[in-house]
């Protein structure tokens, strides 16, 4: 995950909002209403101390998680798809979910490194073929069936008064002190194969994920490049 945070810092410094997606070129979504299994969103909202340390805030995090799930459900509903949230599991099922969440974070980290951060794997040139493996079917079964699984990762931060003061001083001295930033990625997994068929990442120095309107704007921006159901290329 550390590479992802370096990446978001770099992307946010380059402009206000950066969005870039990748899709498996050969994959076509079925031309029928889809069922999307939404995995437990990995969300954290923090405030930045004057020294730049992110202090997670539980209330802000809960608000952002609720707002993002609401925005996702509404966006997919507008496409004619239905959303199933994968509920809390227990025992072996909980362990399996945690294992796949961890594997997905690792795969996303490699996607960030080799598709966003400038480093290239020669065998991946012009391809997008990362996977979690066909074992993800079990996640669909846990949710009562589904066509795709959607993983959501979001980090949002807001500058404290001390941080704002430091930003002003920094600007007066001709330097740059980063303030609050948001970083969100979504990835869509084919529940038959485990292949990641679409991945989109947004880094921005603007917005507020705690606010339903801010969450909606973020989700709508990210979903804009989701492959169309009728088989159109993204």
């Amino acid at each position: 995950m550390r590479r992802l945070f370096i990446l978001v810092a770099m992307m946010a410094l380059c402009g206000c909002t950066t969005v870039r997606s990748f899709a498996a070129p050969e994959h076509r979504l079925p031309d029928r209403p889809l069922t999307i299994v939404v995995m437990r969103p990995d969300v954290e909202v923090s405030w930045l101390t004057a020294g730049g340390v992110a202090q997670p805030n539980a209330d802000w995090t809960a608000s952002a998680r609720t707002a993002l799930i609401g925005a996702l459900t509404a966006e997919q509903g507008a496409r004619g798809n239905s959303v199933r949230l994968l509920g809390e599991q227990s025992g072996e099922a909980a362990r399996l979910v945690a294992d796949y969440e961890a594997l997905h974070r690792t795969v996303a980290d490699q996607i960030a490194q080799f598709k966003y951060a400038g480093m290239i794997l020669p065998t991946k040139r012009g391809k997008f073929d990362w996977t979690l493996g066909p074992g993800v079917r079990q996640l669909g079964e846990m949710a009562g069936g589904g066509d795709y699984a959607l993983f959501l990762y979001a980090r949002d931060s807001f500058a404290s008064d001390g941080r704002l003061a430091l930003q002003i001083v920094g600007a007066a001295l001709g330097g740059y002190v980063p303030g609050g930033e948001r970083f969100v990625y979504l990835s869509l997994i084919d529940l038959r194969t485990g292949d990641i068929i679409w991945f989109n990442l947004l880094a921005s120095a603007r917005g507020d994920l705690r606010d339903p309107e801010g969450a909606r704007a973020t989700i709508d921006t990210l979903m804009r490049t989701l492959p169309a159901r009728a088989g159109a290329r993204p």
Partner: protein
Amino acid sequence: MMWRWVLIAVAAVGPSGCAVFGYTLVRPGAAVDVAGSGLIVSPDRAWNRAGSINGPGKDAERWTLDGPALNELTLYAGIRDGRPLFREEDRRDRPLPRFSATMLPVDVAALFEASYRVASGTSLFTIDAIAPDSLAGRPGFRFDYSYVLPGEEVRRKGAATGAIVGGKLYLISFEAPAIHYFDRDVGAYRAIVAAARLKDDARDVGDIPGPLT
């Protein structure tokens, strides 16, 4: 402002595919002389080889298919007596253990485990099995291992095959997440091990047969 230049530098270096930083293509069927050591391997599929800066050190090479966190093949090519397995990041505070030419297979496995524990800071590393085997036609050994890195919850499985030839350690290891990736890709590692050979000039009368103890 400095970050802008860091970004530009990273972006410029990455796509160039230079051999120092980044990855270069290893073509299937190519005969690769690992780190110029005389250990020759021929992969059955295309791999990505890490450059000298992001690689493991001058006596080894690191290859991957999907990214080093998802499948990593490390080829240790002639580690000499008194040398660590890979590059030391912090020699003063976290010195790596050294290879000794008199090591037995169990000692090499222990060296491997200790090196990982020091380099990654993991306390969750186990050697699961050790058995006699051969590498490049020389008597040797193999061992299986598993570990979890600090700050991650991904359990990884690994397999390594090695031999001590002429007082130098030749070892090929492969590791990947236990879910999906290890089982899918371990065959590529086994194919590389099966076809590995040493150039004639790497032969030495001081070979250590590597009895299992």
